[in-house]
C-alpha cells in the first residue's frame, strides 16, 4: 500500500526509478532462480522416477519372457497399474526411437543395464512434461512388449506452491527495499520542498540527514541559501537606507525652497520635483517595509473602504464609480489592503483615465465566502505577453501604456504582496480577453477569503 502510494505520488521520480531497477533486478533474479531450481528438481524427480520405471521394465520384461505366449495378454491385464500399463503383440517393426528422450533412455539403461538387450525404445505422447512416456521392448522370442508410463501429477502441483514460495520473499524484499529507499531519499524530498521557498521567507536551514552524498548536497544548499538570504537582506537594507537617508536632505531642500527668493514658476516646478522624489521614496519604503503587513489583522468594512477610496477620487474630480454592497465586513490587515486598492484605483485613473470598482461577495463551494474586487478602466490595457511582467517590482511599461509612468514600478508588486499576505489572489487581464469582445482596458481582479471570526485570523500567513 505504502509502496503503491509512493509510486503513484512520485510517479517516475528518483524513487520510482530506483524501485523499477529493484523490480528488474528481482525479476531477473527470480527467473534465473526458478530456471535453475526447476532444472535441478526436475532432474531429481526424474532420477526417482527413472529408477522406478527401470524396475518396472525389468520386472515386466522378465515376467513376459518366462510366460507362455497365450498367457501374455491376460498377464498384461494383471500387472497393469494406474501409472504403468503394458500390451503384448506377437511381432512388429521396432518403433523409431525418439531422440528427445535419449537422455531418459540412457538413464534407464544406466539404472538397469539388463535392459540394454531389450532394444528399449521410448517416445513421448502429447506434452513433453504432462503426457505419458511410451516405449517398447523386444522379448527374447522376438515379440514386442509396448508399455506406457504416465508421469506423476506431483511435478505441477509442487510447482505452484514452490512458485508462491519463491515469489513471496521476493515481494517482501521488494516492499522492504522500496520503504528503505524511500526513507533514504526523504532528506532529498525535504530539500526539494525547501528549494522552492528560498528567498521567499526567513532563512531556514534544511537539517543535514541521509546518505553522505545527500548530506553534502544539503550542506551546499544551506550555504547557498544563506548567501541568497544575505544578498536579499543586504539589498533590502541598502534600498531602505537610500529611502530613509534621502529624506533628511530632501526635507532641507523643501524648506530652503520656501525661503529663497525666486520666480514663482521655478519654485512650483522645483516643489513638484521634490514631491516626485518623495513619492518615489515612499513607494520604495512601502514596498520594502511591507506597509501594514506587520500590523495585526482587524475587522473592517471592505465596502466602506472601497467607497471611501472611490469617493476620494471623485472629490478630486476623477471619473470613479463604485458598484457593490453597502457593507461587507471581514478581517484583514487594513493598511495593506487599503494601500492595495488605492494603488489599483490610482493605476486605473492614471493609465485608463477612469476607474470602476465592482465588489461582490461570492459563496464558493467548499472554500467559504470570498470577496471579489474588480477594478477596471477603459484605457489601452497592457500587451497580454507583458502582464506577468508588470507584477514584478521595478518594472514599468512606459512604452506599452503610452503615458509617462510615475514611481518606481512598485505599485502592482505592493498590491500582489498585500493580497498574498491575506491568502488571496490577484489577476490582471485585459477586458477584451475576459469578455471575448473588442472592449479595451485593464481589469485587476482580487479575491480575498472572507474571514469573519477573529481567532481564525490570528495565524494565517
Amino acid at each position, binding site marked *: 500500500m505504502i509502496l503503491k502510494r509512493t509510486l503513484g505520488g512520485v510517479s517516475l521520480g528518483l524513487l520510482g526509478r530506483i524501485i523499477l531497477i529493484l523490480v528488474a533486478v528481482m525479476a531477473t533474479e527470480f527467473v534465473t532462480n526458478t530456471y535453475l531450481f526447476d532444472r535441478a528438481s526436475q532432474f531429481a524427480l526424474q532420477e526417482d522416477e527413472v529408477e522406478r520405471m527401470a524396475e518396472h521394465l525389468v520386472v515386466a520384461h522378465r515376467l513376459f519372457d518366462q510366460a507362455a505366449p497365450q498367457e501374455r495378454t491376460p498377464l498384461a491385464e494383471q500387472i497393469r497399474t494406474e501409472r504403468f500399463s503394458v500390451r503384448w503383440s506377437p511381432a512388429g517393426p521396432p518403433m523409431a526411437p525418439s531422440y528427445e528422450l535419449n537422455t531418459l533412455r540412457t538413464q534407464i539403461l544406466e539404472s538397469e543395464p539388463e535392459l540394454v538387450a531389450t532394444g528399449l525404445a521410448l517416445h513421448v505422447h502429447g506434452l513433453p512434461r504432462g503426457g505419458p512416456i511410451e516405449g517398447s521392448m523386444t522379448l527374447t522370442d522376438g515379440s514386442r512388449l509396448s508399455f506406457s508410463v504416465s508421469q506423476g501429477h506431483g511435478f505441477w502441483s509442487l510447482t505452484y506452491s514452490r512458485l508462491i514460495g519463491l515469489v513471496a520473499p521476493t515481494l517482501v524484499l521488494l516492499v522492504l527495499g522500496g520503504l528503505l529507499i524511500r526513507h533514504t531519499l526523504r532528506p532529498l524530498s525535504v530539500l526539494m520542498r525547501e528549494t522552492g521557498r528560498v528567498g521567499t521567507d526567513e532563512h531556514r536551514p534544511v537539517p543535514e540527514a541521509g546518505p553522505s552524498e545527500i548530506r553534502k548536497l544539503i550542506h551546499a544548499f544551506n550555504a547557498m541559501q544563506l548567501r541568497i538570504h544575505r544578498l536579499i537582506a543586504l539589498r533590502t537594507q541598502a534600498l531602505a537606507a537610500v529611502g*530613509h*537617508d534621502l*529624506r*533628511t536632505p*530632501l*526635507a*532641507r*531642500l*523643501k*524648506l*530652503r525652497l*520656501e*525661503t529663497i527668493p525666486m520666480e514663482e514658476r521655478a519654485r512650483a516646478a522645483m516643489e513638484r520635483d*521634490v514631491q516626485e522624489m*518623495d513619492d518615489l*521614496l*515612499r513607494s520604495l*519604503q*512601502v514596498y520594502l*517595509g511591507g*506597509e*501594514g503587513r*506587520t*500590523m495585526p489583522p*482587524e*475587522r*473592517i*468594512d471592505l*465596502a*466602506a*473602504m472601497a*467607497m*471611501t*477610496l472611490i*469617493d*476620494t477620487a471623485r*472629490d478630486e474630480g476623477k471619473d470613479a464609480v463604485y458598484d457593490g454592497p*453597502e*457593507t461587507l*465586513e471581514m478581517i484583514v490587515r*487594513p*493598511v495593506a489592503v*487599503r*494601500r492595495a486598492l488605492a494603488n489599483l484605483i490610482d493605476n486605473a485613473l492614471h493609465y485608463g483615465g477612469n476607474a470602476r470598482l465592482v465588489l461582490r461577495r461570492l459563496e464558493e463551494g467548499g472554500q467559504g465566502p470570498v470577496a471579489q474586487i474588480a477594478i477596471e478602466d477603459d484605457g489601452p490595457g497592457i500587451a497580454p505577453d507583458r502582464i506577468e511582467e508588470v507584477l514584478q517590482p521595478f518594472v514599468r511599461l512606459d512604452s506599452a501604456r503610452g503615458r509617462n509612468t510615475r514611481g518606481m514600478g512598485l505599485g502592482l508588486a505592493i498590491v500582489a504582496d498585500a493580497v498574498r499576505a491575506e491568502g488571496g489572489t490577484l489577476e490582471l487581464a485585459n477586458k477584451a480577453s475576459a469578455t471575448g469582445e473588442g472592449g479595451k482596458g485593464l481589469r485587476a481582479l482580487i479575491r480575498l477569503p472572507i474571514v469573519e471570526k477573529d481567532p481564525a485570523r490570528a495565524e494565517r500567513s
Partner: protein
Amino acid sequence: MTAQTILLVEDDPSLRLLTARAMQEHGYRVRSAATAPEMWIAMENEKVDLVVLDIMLPGTNGIDLCRQIRRESDVPIIFISARASEADRVLGLELGADDYLAKPFSSRELIARIRAVLRRGGAIDGREEDSRRNEARFEGWTVNFSRRELRSPTGAIIDLTGAEFDLLATFIGQPQRVIGRERLIELTRTRLGDSSDRSIDVLVSRLRRKLAAAGGNPPITTVRGVGYMFNAEVLRG
C-alpha cells in the same frame, strides 16, 4: 498672549536650523536640542508647550524617547519621521504622540500641525480629562479623533474620507442641535475646495449611508431650510 515655546529635537544641524527658523517666523519661541540629553535639560530649564521630535535621533530610539516623555509630562508631541510608514504613524500615536509628520514636509504643513495640536492641547487646560486623544461613542459607534477612525457597533473599522470625518466630528461636537448649512458648507470648502450646496448634501448622504450600513437608522436628520441635526446621545472619554 506670550509666544508659545516649542522644543525642537533634531539631530541634523541644517534641518534643525531651517525648521527652527520656519517656526520662529510664525511667532513661536524655539528651543533646539540635538540629542536626548539636551532635550531633557531644555525641558527642565523652562516650560515647553510642544515638542517636535525627530524619531530617528542617534543614541535613542525616538519611539522610546516618546514613551519616556509621556511618562514625565503631558506636553504635546509631534513626531517627525523619515519612515513614512503607516505602522510608524499608528505606533507613534498609540504611544501618546499627538501628530505625525513625514519628511520632507513644508513649513506650511508643519505650522498647521503645530497650531492644531496646540489648539487641542490649549482647550483642555483646566479640564481634568485629557481630551487630546479622545474618543466619542454614540449608539454603539466609536470615534477615535487622534487616529481619525470610526468603528461600527460590531467593531469594524469604517473608512471615511477626510471631509466625511470632519463632518462627523462637527456633528459629534454639537449633538442634538441643528447645525446650519452655512457652517457645513464652510467646512466642505476648506476640505474639498468646492462650496456648492450640492456637495454638502452629497457628503451628508455618504455619511448617512455608512452609518446605516450596520442596520438601523443613521442619526442624522435633515432640518428643512436650516441644516442638519445629529440626534444621538454622544458619550465622551
